[in-house]
């Protein structure tokens, strides 16, 4: 190597000077770029494009994965928000229902001063056998509920009577159950009778109004309310309306088929009347 530079150094130096001068002269006389620079860049351009394309593709991929991850996180976040909103909507619906029920109750309380002591309760179970019509409530003796207490809906329609009560539960026999029997009155005529459940009518969700006066002039649609006689139940709670008048099997007496004002299958909230004042 030492010998190479010793013998050829001068020539190399000379050639370098010539090339440098040539490049300088070419760059002076060229308006855009020197031919050598141009040639080099022309050769390098496709490689540069390929390199740019590859890096661009890699960046795209990287962005895709980054975006995908971000979108997944965003989706999870949105799903969480949606679930929370759905829960809020459900709670709001429930609150709306309860609100409507309590508004009805407030109206009832203002209309019926004699019904002083209420306890609201939720229906936790609908009929459990095919031979009884009962409801299970979430309030019991801990809340002052007693056997025989009257149960109404928010509009003051009679649901039934408490048949059994435990510490935090109670069972209501509805007005259509065969064990239910109440003093009743036809609101329009004032005729008195006994509203009682009948198994043949229980399937149709109806009850009987028995022991009607022989001269009773009843019409379909007449309102039947509690008579309040004896002081066991508050008076004028709506039991239902008369659907039709029938004659019993003996043919000697007639009875009315009463359709309850309450749809038991749709009941979710009720009100237990723990005590009431007897208005004379």
């Amino acid at each position, binding site marked *: 190597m030492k010998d190479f530079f010793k013998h050829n150094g001068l020539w190399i130096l000379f050639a370098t000077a010539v090339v440098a001068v040539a490049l300088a002269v070419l760059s002076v006389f060229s308006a855009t770029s020197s031919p050598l620079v141009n040639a080099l860049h022309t050769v390098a351009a496709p490689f540069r494009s390929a390199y740019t394309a590859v890096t661009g593709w890699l960046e795209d991929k990287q962005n895709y994965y980054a975006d995908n991850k971000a979108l997944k996180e965003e989706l999870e976040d949105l799903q969480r928000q949606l679930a929370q909103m759905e829960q809020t909507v459900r709670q709001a619906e429930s609150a709306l229902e309860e609100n409507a029920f309590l508004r009805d109750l407030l109206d009832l309380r203002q209309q019926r001063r004699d019904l002083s002591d209420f306890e609201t309760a939720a229906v936790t179970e609908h009929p459990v056998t*095919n*031979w*009884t019509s009962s409801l299970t409530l979430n309030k019991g003796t801990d809340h002052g509920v007693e056997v025989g207490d009257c149960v109404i809906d928010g509009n003051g329609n009679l649901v039934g009577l408490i048949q059994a009560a435990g510490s935090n539960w109670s069972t209501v026999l509805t007005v259509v159950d065969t064990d239910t029997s109440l003093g009743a009155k036809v609101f329009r005529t004032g005729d008195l009778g006994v509203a009682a459940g009948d198994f043949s009518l229980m*399937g149709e969700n109806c009850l009987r109004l028995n022991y009607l006066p022989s001269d009773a002039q009843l019409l379909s649609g007449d309102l039947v309310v509690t008579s309040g006689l004896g002081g066991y139940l508050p008076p004028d709670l709506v039991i239902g309306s008369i659907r039709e008048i029938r004659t019993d099997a003996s043919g000697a007496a007639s009875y009315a088929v009463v359709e309850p004002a309450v749809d038991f299958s749709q009941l979710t909230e009720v009100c237990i009347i723990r005590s009431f004042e007897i208005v004379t």
Partner: protein
Amino acid sequence: MLARNETLFKWLLYTLGALLWVLVQTALLQRVTLWGVIPFCYPLIAAIPATYEGPSAAMVFALCVGVFCDLLLPAPLPCFYTLIFPAVGLCACLIARNLLPAGFLCSLAASAAAFFLTDLFQCLLLWGRGKAAWGAGAWVLCREFLLTAPLIIPMTLLFRGVYRRTHADD
């Protein structure tokens, strides 16, 4: 002849099976209303295990189911199911011993008898209180049995499994 601990184990399994069906009834079946009735599997719980056992065991098991039902369900008498379910158990056992060998067909017959006896007792009590409803009662019996009958298959499989598991050496 089973040893004492095997007998206890067998009745423990029968009880667990029965409780499983009570859970199914309360959590699911009584929320299903079809033809105006709900499926009612308690008579089946009293009858089907009885088809695999002797009369005394069948009656005692059915009596326990009856007591449980009286504590759980509203009825015209406080001891309604306690009174009728031993008869249901005995009837199921007699069917299995004298008419049909224990199995699906026997369970079907025993279940039909169980519903017949239970609902007949209901009708008799209504009649006794002057509220006779024989026609409506028979109609409820038919619908209730038809709706509950499909449950006989899984229930028979369960209790037959218990019987075979505990009588593997017989």
